[in-house]
């Protein structure tokens, strides 16, 4: 199916000032990204940050306004056919035919990607076994649960042995248990097939669990790229969250202290990055009572990827937002037919 490997290809994906404009809106602003083969790369960002725009251009569904990218060494503008053959995609929205059975969906995919029928039959069985759907292979998709559909799409995305697999919000709208289950499948599949995975997600724990490297994107721009461990380590110390009725006033007063240069108001609470937070919290509380500002609560925690995200985007990433979007899709689905 797929043999050509360019000698000079160092990156699985390399973008060059990749830009997309919809009318006046700049959806993606000259993205420069390098992703090494074998990585599980996570693209994190709030809604409308440009994640899906970036992915759809890399998959050649959408054409860039300017700039370009190499996927597996192929130019997305000039070699769309070769790019397509070398990648697998699991879209954010379901993309299976629900009148067909799981196996029929897989077989159609195999034909579209030029896999001969005998090879396809073996490989379909193998992959359906891997994602635990072999018993349900011949049931119509209508009878599949959300998690099963996702698994089938995952298996389908790998059917033509792509070297890069795109997962756009792979666990959106799934319950926590199904999500865990899907994560182990993704990990196992990525390890066994030794491919590069690019995933976008709203869920920080998903990125922490799966990704060897993450890029944080906001308003069409990439803010930083590093490993989750490095990003969390860079925050140093602890995160202190203070809830109060007057966050802005309190933030103003905090500037009097020497150790509070990393403080900001996020969604009505004051957040500080401190080292030795246990010792400094009493000082903060004292300051508040001296200023006559009532504190509702003070909490200390070790930084997570979520704090990293907040630090770079100033926004709380909201899983609910994504789920609301999902519900919108589900409404359309139930209204249809």
């Amino acid at each position, binding site marked *: 199916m797929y043999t050509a490997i360019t000698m000079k290809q160092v990156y699985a994906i390399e973008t060059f000032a990749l830009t997309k404009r919809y009318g006046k809106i700049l959806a993606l602003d000259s993205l420069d990204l390098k992703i090494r083969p074998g990585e599980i790369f996570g693209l994190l960002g709030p809604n409308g940050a440009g994640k899906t725009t970036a992915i759809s251009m890399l998959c050649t569904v959408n054409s860039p306004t300017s700039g370009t990218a190499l996927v597996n060494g192929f130019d997305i503008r000039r070699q769309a056919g070769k790019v*397509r053959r070398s990648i697998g995609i699991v879209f954010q929205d379901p993309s299976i035919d629900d009148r067909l059975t799981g196996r*029929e969906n897989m077989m159609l995919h195999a*034909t579209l990607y030029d896999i001969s029928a005998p090879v396809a039959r073996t490989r379909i069985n193998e992959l359906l076994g891997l994602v635990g759907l072999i018993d349900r292979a011949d049931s119509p998709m209508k009878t599949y649960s959300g998690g099963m559909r996702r698994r089938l799409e995952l298996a389908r995305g790998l059917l033509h042995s792509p070297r890069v697999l795109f997962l756009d919000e792979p666990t959106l709208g799934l319950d926590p248990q199904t999500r865990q289950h899907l994560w182990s499948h993704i990990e196992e599949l990525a390890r066994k097939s030794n491919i590069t995975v690019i995933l976008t997600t709203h869920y920080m724990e998903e990125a922490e669990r799966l990704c060897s490297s993450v890029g944080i994107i906001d308003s069409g721009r990439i803010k930083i790229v590093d490993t989750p461990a490095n990003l969390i380590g860079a925050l140093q110390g602890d995160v202190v969250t203070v809830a109060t009725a007057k966050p802005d006033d309190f933030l103003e007063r905090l500037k009097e202290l020497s150790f509070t240069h990393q403080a900001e108001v996020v969604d009505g609470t004051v957040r500080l990055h401190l080292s030795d937070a246990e010792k400094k919290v009493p000082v903060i509380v004292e300051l508040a009572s001296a200023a006559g500002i009532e504190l509702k609560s003070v909490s200390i925690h070790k930084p997570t990827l979520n704090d990293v995200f907040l630090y770079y985007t100033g926004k709380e990433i909201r899983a609910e937002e994504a789920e609301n979007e999902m519900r919108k899709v589900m409404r*359309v689905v139930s209204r249809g037919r």
Partner: protein
Amino acid sequence: MSELRKIGALWYREVLRYWREKSRIVSSLILPVLWLLVFGSGMRNVQLPGVDNYQTFIFPGILGMTLLFTSVWSGVSIIWDREFGFLKEIMVAPVSRTAIVVGKALGSGTSALVQGFILLPLSMLIGIRLDPQSILLLIPIMILLAVGLVCVGLLIASLMNSMEGFNFIMSLVIMPMFFTSGALFPISAAPGWLQVFSYFNPLTYGVDLLRWATSRGTATALPVYAETIILMGFAAAMIAACSYTFSVKK
């Protein structure tokens, strides 16, 4: 060669979907039966120039109508594929846009054809006798017509954002095509301004050929070969237009 295999796979998907939606097969037969048996019987004694038996006259017209409705509907149904995401799976696959359009057109054309065939036995109820030769002639005419009309549906779908606009399309495109095609009355009996519309309507030639094939010996508006060429041109032009529309990225 591989494109042919892909067209085959896309065709097979359409056929499977059609086959699994049996309620649609039955429900889409109700309308033609009503036209033929109720409308046709009621109008039996109406005198129209060049029409001996009204039911015999409208049978090919109703056949054409069935092809029109089923084909355009299947074409428009690609909106479902778009809304439910399946279209994306096809659009990112290494398949040419033409293959996607041809696969869809052939698949939907097949369901329209089956729908047409189910109607053929009805002809006996109203006293038309179809000899094997007539049936052999009907098949290619029905295929040509269905392929062109599916693409009309696909083109309409590319202009629509949701299924909500379908009623509008129904009254703006489909019904006018049906009424001006000579399915229900001979075009020669219509006033001049209406005839102009009819001659621009590809369905007119489809119905005319279907009529020529069912009761052979009926005079056609243009020579048979000319009408066949018009239908072929119509189908080819529609496939080309659809392939173009599909290859334009948003």
